[in-house]
């Protein structure tokens, strides 16, 4: 029976533990999410709410957490008979995430840079069998990525510091880190105002104190207004969860406006 409260430093405990839920409810406070999982004879009750905490979000789980605030929403899952074990699995967003640097970043012509961006995580509560339900750890606003309001895709919006120095990165256990290499092959400098991270095509891996995804390689060819993303191999092999969608040969091609602006 896992009762330990995972700390930020040993964040993997949360994702690797098999939680034994008997009579007491399991509490999870991660990011802005407060989740209370209660087991009854024929149903699971999942109470949840979000408290906007920006970058100083929670990261705790256990049976002894003192949660006084009433959960705003309640989800009931009825099953023939509940099993006492459950697992929490981290996942990436189910839609692309458009990250905006807090201030625009200029990439000169014929230049290649690598920046580090983080995207919010989802938690999938696996209640045995095929019963699984998901919650985002941070409530994200929605945004549209495309040149026209009729052409493009619906994405989640998020902000990033777009750090170029890995050592300056703040380790946030409720966000996943993605190294992004941008190769500006054009003869013009480009100003990066927003970047679409294809989260549904990425897997999550255990990094050094942080969940990481495969590195992305953006190449920008403004001549034909096409950009392509190559999903590269990660540095680590410790995969925590797989991609939601598969892509052929790990390459995504789209119009420039749909990837980068």
């Amino acid at each position: 029976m896992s009762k330990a409260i995972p700390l930020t430093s040993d964040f993997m405990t949360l994702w690797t533990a098999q939680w034994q839920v008997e009579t007491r409810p399991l509490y999870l406070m991660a990011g802005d999410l407060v989740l209370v999982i209660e087991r009854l004879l024929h149903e699971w009750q999942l109470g949840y709410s979000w408290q906007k905490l920006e970058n100083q979000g929670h990261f705790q789980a256990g049976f002894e957490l003192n949660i006084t605030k009433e959960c705003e929403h309640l989800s009931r899952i009825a099953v023939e008979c509940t099993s006492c074990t459950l697992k929490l699995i981290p996942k990436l967003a189910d839609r692309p995430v458009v990250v905006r640097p807090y201030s625009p970043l200029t990439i000169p012509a014929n230049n290649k840079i690598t920046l580090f961006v983080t995207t919010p995580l989802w938690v999938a509560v696996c209640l045995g069998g095929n019963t699984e339900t998901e919650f985002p750890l941070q409530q994200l606003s929605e945004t549209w990525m495309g040149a026209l309001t009729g052409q493009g895709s619906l994405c989640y919006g998020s902000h990033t510091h777009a750090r170029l120095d890995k050592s300056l990165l703040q380790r946030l256990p409720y966000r996943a880190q993605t190294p992004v290499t941008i190769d500006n092959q054009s003869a013009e400098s480009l100003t990066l105002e927003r970047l679409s991270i294809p989260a549904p095509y990425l897997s999550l891996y255990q990094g050094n104190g942080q969940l990481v995804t495969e590195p992305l390689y953006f190449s920008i060819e403004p001549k034909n207004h096409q950009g392509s993303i190559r999903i590269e191999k990660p540095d680590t092999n410790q995969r925590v969860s797989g991609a939601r969608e598969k892509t052929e040969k790990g390459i995504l091609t789209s119009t420039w406006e749909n990837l980068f602006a």
Partner: protein
Amino acid sequence: MNELIPEADIQSTISWLNMIKAALLVLIGWVVARLASRFFTRFTRFKLNKHQLAIYTRFIFYLLFSLFAITALHQLGFKISVLLGAAGILTVALGFASQTSASNLISGLFLLGEKPFEIGDVLKVDGDTGEVISVDLLSVKLRTFDNLYVRIPNELLIKSKFTNLTKFPIRRIDLVIGVAYRENLQKVIQLLLELTARDARCLEEPQPFCIITGFGSSSVDLQLSVWCRREVFRDLKSELMQAIKQSFDAHGIEIPFPHVSLYSGSQTAPFPVYQVDQPGKETPTPDGQSGV
């Protein structure tokens, strides 16, 4: 004479037999066509959308059924070439008699080709708004949100204007808000934009905006425009209006209702106004008389 009777009997027997065979062929054709269209639906339901599925299923059914029907006619002794010739003459005759139906039929084919909407889309036609439940050769059927069945002839859809409310994934909510002339408009605009920033359903891009649209008779009119997913359009619109009212109340911003200023002219004395403190009690009037 006696020799002819058995021959007629035989012909009669064959004719009855052929009729039974033809009826069986039609019946089998109907069953086979139905089964084939069902199988097609089962195997392609995840690959095709509802609209395509309905068209292809119908096409398969009618194709197979017509083949069996033609074979049945052949069984009865009809010559297909003669039938087709007769059908040509019949078509001309029918064409004159059923111009409206023919027009609807052709309009239906154009609609199928143009695909301005699909099954499941929400259309607004002539004041009726509803979900498309079927697209047929003669008409389109809508189910309105108050659960009424509306049949719209295809010809009408080709000729007149209609709006597809679900063609694009995102929509814009335009709210017209009036505030009193004395209010600080910059503060009002800031408050409205903050409200949209707080709601995760309001899209970040395209950005929400707020503009002053005019000086009304009783208020300064503003327009707040916010983009959202089409699924949340109605709820978000209602909740935004509620949030605006609450926010304005909290910040003491007045939403004025139509005002009328009475002016008696510069040369005339002001209108006499009497104040009544409590009902039933006498209130002194300016001339010293008591009034109620």
